[in-house]
């Protein structure tokens, strides 16, 4: 009698554990998102990029609990019209985030930078480009993908989608394996090959932006859409640097009434390497 009871309790205990654990495990393995996010996706059902607001979330896209997805439209025409404006943006970012400028390209750290049109859009036709385009330099930065391969690759969740859909970094958790750098199809990530506070990096230690930390060597970093400025109710530093020119428009892609959605509705825009299914949140008006 006693033995039977023990057997029963054993089986009951194991089944309960399995019952409790299995859905959580399956959830994680199947979708690769936290159960919370998965639930939010079902409840909120915000539109993916370009989709009508009430359309269900596109498959594979990770939808954050708030349903927000910050994004950016870069109007290349306005940057062509205002030479030097792009450099202002880069400078604003560098100052705002205490980014060192090492002379050796091997040590380079870039959050937002200029690259050739064909480098930014290698999949687009480069055949007999207009002369303006051929010589034009385009601003590139982290795309804050709705379906980011870097977040998938990170073994410690040091890079993650935050509550606004921003692909953020935890510099204190990153182990420096650089799997995210291999995973990023846009080359948006930089690694601190050496101490970023080293004098060679040109950071003026007495004149740092105290509102954003300097990093340490051995961790990966990249554009964070100025999440620290957004928290204070300010625009990203690069957007602020464009002044009122609207060369960069920043906002919530999932809010149908946002300015960025109006810009997307009124203009033909392109994304970088859309065929990879990463759903980049940075759009370009060429």
């Amino acid at each position, binding site marked *: 009698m006693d033995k039977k009871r023990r057997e029963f309790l054993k089986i009951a205990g194991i089944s309960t554990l399995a019952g409790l654990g299995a859905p959580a495990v399956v959830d*994680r*393995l199947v979708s*690769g998102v936290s159960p919370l996010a998965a639930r939010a996706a079902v409840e909120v059902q915000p539109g993916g990029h370009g989709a009508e607001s009430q359309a269900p979330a596109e498959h594979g896209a990770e939808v954050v609990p708030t349903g927000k997805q910050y994004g950016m439209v870069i109007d290349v025409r306005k940057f062509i019209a205002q030479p030097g404006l792009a450099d202002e943006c880069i400078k604003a970012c560098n100052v705002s985030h205490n980014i060192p400028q090492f002379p050796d*390209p*091997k*040590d*380079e*750290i*870039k959050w937002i930078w200029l*690259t050739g049109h*064909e*480098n*930014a859009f*290698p999949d687009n036709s480069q055949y007999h480009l207009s002369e303006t385009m051929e010589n034009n330099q385009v601003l*590139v930065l982290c795309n804050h993908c709705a379906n980011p*391969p870097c977040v*998938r*690759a*990170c*073994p*410690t*969740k*040091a890079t993650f989608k935050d509550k606004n859909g921003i692909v953020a970094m935890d510099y204190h*958790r*990153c*182990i*420096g*394996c*650089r*799997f995210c*750098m*291999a*995973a*990023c*199809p*846009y*080359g948006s990530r*930089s*690694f*601190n*090959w*050496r*101490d970023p506070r080293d004098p060679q990096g040109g950071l003026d230690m007495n004149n740092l932006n105290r509102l954003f930390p300097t990093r340490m*060597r*051995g*961790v*990966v970093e990249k554009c964070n859409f100025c999440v620290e400025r957004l928290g204070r109710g300010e625009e990203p530093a690069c957007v602020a640097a464009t002044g009122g020119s609207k060369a960069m428009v920043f906002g919530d892609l999932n809010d149908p009434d946002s300015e960025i959605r109006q810009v997307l509705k009124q203009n033909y825009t392109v994304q970088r*390497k859309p065929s*990879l*299914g*990463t759903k980049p949140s940075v759009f370009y008006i060429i």
Partner: protein
Amino acid sequence: MFEKALKGNNNYWMWLGFLGTFMAIGAICYIRQFNYGLGLTGMSRDVSWGLYISNFTFLVGVAAGGVMLVLPYYVHNYKVFGRITILGEFLAIAALTMCLMFIIADLGQPIRALNVLLHPTPNSMLFWDMIVLNGYLFLNIICGWVILTAERKQVKPPKWVYIFVYISIPFAISIHTVTAMLYCGLPGRHFWLSAIIAPRFLASAFAAGPALIVFVSLILKRVAHFDAGREATNKMVTIILYAALINAFFVMLEFFVGYYSQIPGHMHTLQYLFFGLEHHGHVYNNLVPFMWGFVVLTLTGFTLLAIPYTRRNDFWLAIGSAALFIGLWLDKGIGFVLGGFVPSPLEEITEYYPTFNEIMITIAVWCTGFFILTVLYKIAVGVEHEVEA
């Protein structure tokens, strides 16, 4: 059983001393890297993995290769491999130790390595790689040690150990499959984004691992009077030949897909690796000699192992298996990982040149592996002799 490793002739101690010297130099180099950062290596923003990860990838294969001895013996009861399965298991231990050392050497923040356990992330392939590599290491330590102890006492190994032996077989496949998945699941890296990577890794592993065992067993025959036996050697050579052939076949399939489809992304890296890639008037080709080295060494090794005359001659057999091993290292331990970063996601080309410090650390890790291998094989051979006496 460790006492067997503490008694040896002059050659044994000189060999260990030789390896130890390089290990010491490498340790100093690693301290330098630890203090300065990975900037002491040749890696850069564009080529963000270098010698450490490429050698890691190759050595996972060497570790998995041991299963080619374990499987025939335990699953198909192929008795001839009885004497040498322990060599496969101990090789796996040495190779996996090297793998883990290479990973640690490559981390920007090695003291945070345990974050992988503190914050387990099932959607990262690196998390699974950590699990299968450590699992396979653990399994090989258990199986190798228990079975060798039983042999020494001249009793049958305990039944429970066979559970671990049988689990270790799919684990061997899994370590290299998951290692391939580190690469083949990344969007935007065309050279790696191929479903044939995992099978190709396995094929090259099943050639490289046994090739090393054949080579080492020929050395053991000379220096330790340990004879693997002609039949066992011949069977291993057969396995090596088929595996190397399949690997070559897979490489050629990659060429077909790239050059017949004419999709630039699928051709660029192959072009860069084998012929040199022209970009803005400059031809980038620093890996070309290595890849043709791979072709030549594979052909040489294959021929020496395939022709009955050279196969029966211990000298040529040793040269042939060494040639194949080095050839496969050039393919996977150099070309595959480094080539995958060219061109960069922004279609720029940065070539990678390892630094002296980095090369010394790499050599030191290899020496540590061979140090462990020597000690383990010394123990295994010692037990073998004791039983025979």
